């Protein structure tokens, strides 16, 4: 769970600049399986493989390409990507502060946390306090890799979170799916009965109450299996199974012979 920085840069609004680190706010699934080779339980690694050269390609030899025709690509480098809007690739510039309750959850995409960078602790603390008091969040754009994200900066717990937002043209208008009202008569009475049930079922939101059943079942399965079968062990390096040096074997065998025997 090491909170590794995904990106480092600066939040700015007007003349204020706050150094920050972007870190993960969610981890998808903590049951992590490792793929192993069925033959000897050697661990497998996901790697890029060049079919033409029949070998693994080290990270230094991988580049990004845009497909312009069949098997035809234009290579685009990191530096070139940064050059598209250099001012946004190290800066999260807040353009507007908005009432966070005005941002429809429909726009929310992926959440992250922002942690203060060196020297930015005080200004970071101030922004958190001010956002809490005003119920406001900051709308900004910033570039991460090949994408420019529209983001909302807001407070989660005592931290700043950054949620990437969908652009408005990515959101399907609701009218596409809910048919316009047809004459079907009033639903007053049914609505009232539902509202009564809803009020009766009111609770506080406590995410820990809704356990992930799938996870729980997998953990239970693993527990059962660990009880009845010894875990397999992966070899720790690629080694042949040859004999040790002859003289060492002889010396050790001699020692073993002297033993009274293992009970």
């Amino acid at each position, binding site marked *: 769970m090491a909170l590794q920085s995904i990106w480092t840069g600066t939040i700015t609004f007007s003349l*204020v600049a706050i150094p920050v680190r972007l870190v993960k706010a969610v981890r*998808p699934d903590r049951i992590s399986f490792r793929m192993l080779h069925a033959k000897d339980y050697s661990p497998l690694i996901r790697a890029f493989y060049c079919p033409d050269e029949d070998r*693994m390609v080290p990270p230094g030899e991988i580049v990004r390409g845009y497909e312009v025709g069949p098997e035809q690509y234009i290579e685009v480098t990191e530096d070139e990507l940064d050059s598209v809007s250099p001012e946004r690739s190290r*800066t999260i510039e807040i353009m507007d502060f908005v009432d966070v309750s005005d941002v429809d959850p429909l726009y929310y995409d992926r959440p992250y946390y922002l942690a203060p960078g060196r020297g930015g602790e005080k200004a970071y603390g101030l922004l958190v306090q001010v956002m809490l008091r005003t119920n406001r969040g900051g709308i900004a754009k910033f570039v991460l890799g090949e994408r420019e994200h529209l983001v909302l900066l807001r407070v989660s717990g005592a931290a700043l979170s950054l949620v990437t937002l969908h652009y408005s043209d990515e959101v399907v208008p609701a009218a596409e799916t809910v048919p316009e009202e047809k004459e079907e008569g009033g639903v007053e009475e049914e609505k009232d009965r539902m509202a009564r049930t809803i009020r009766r079922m009111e609770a506080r939101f406590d995410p820990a109450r809704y356990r992930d059943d799938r996870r729980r079942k997998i953990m239970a399965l693993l527990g059962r299996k660990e009880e009845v079968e010894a875990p397999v062990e992966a070899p720790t390096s690629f080694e042949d199974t040859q004999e040790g040096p002859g003289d060492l074997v002889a010396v050790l065998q001699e020692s073993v012979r002297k033993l009274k025997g293992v009970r």
Partner: protein
Amino acid sequence: MVSRALWKGQIHFGDFDVPVKLHTAVREQRIQFHLLHSRDHVRLRQHMLCAYEKVPVPREEQVRGFEVGEGRYIIVDDDELERLEPEGNRTIEIHDFVRGGQIDPLYFDRVYYLAPDVMLRGYRALAEALGETGMEGICTWTMRKRSYLGSLAAKGKAMRLITLRHADEVIDAGSLDLPVTGLSDRELEAGVNLVTALSAPFQPEKFKNDHQKKLRELIDRKAAGEKISILRPRQRRATPPDRLLETLEASLKKAV
């Protein structure tokens, strides 16, 4: 154009059943890059390789292990996992209703629009009841052999279902180990005034993805054989803590 429904089922709570259809609420349009080998621009494929011998291992020779100790694994096969998958009964079961706005957005995963299925009455009544009470329904359901946790809410006459992350998928803000900083009343007041001065209504249409267009242009220029000049991003100097108040006040003067 009406999108095709992804899934159909019925919302259940108390003695009510409301049949609904799920539709996507978001369609992403993004420029897609591929990964190439730098030497010959051959498109690379991901493979599973033996960590030691660095040779590809075919699918049928791969097994899934759960690490129970350094380098020790319990092997779990597909059948065993398959048997754990829930049987779907097409019911979105509401367990509780909570006041709207209580859920930290860090829990939000995907949003689906709900459309009425078969008949409109129940749907309209539920949307109105949720609107009137200001509540959201916390529900679970099984879709395509996976169980989901979600929140059902009304927006105007329509209802939506947001899938929620489970509690242990969301990292606690406490693990950031944030330092406690002392702030003076004057600093806070200046901060509040500045943020208020810089506030505007949220208008998503205002923000266009022009970056995408610029990226497209860059690709076209490269395709035409042009050389791209590299622009280096600059890092802004941090506002020094002892000049925070001064900077806030100067910003405020600029804003009004």
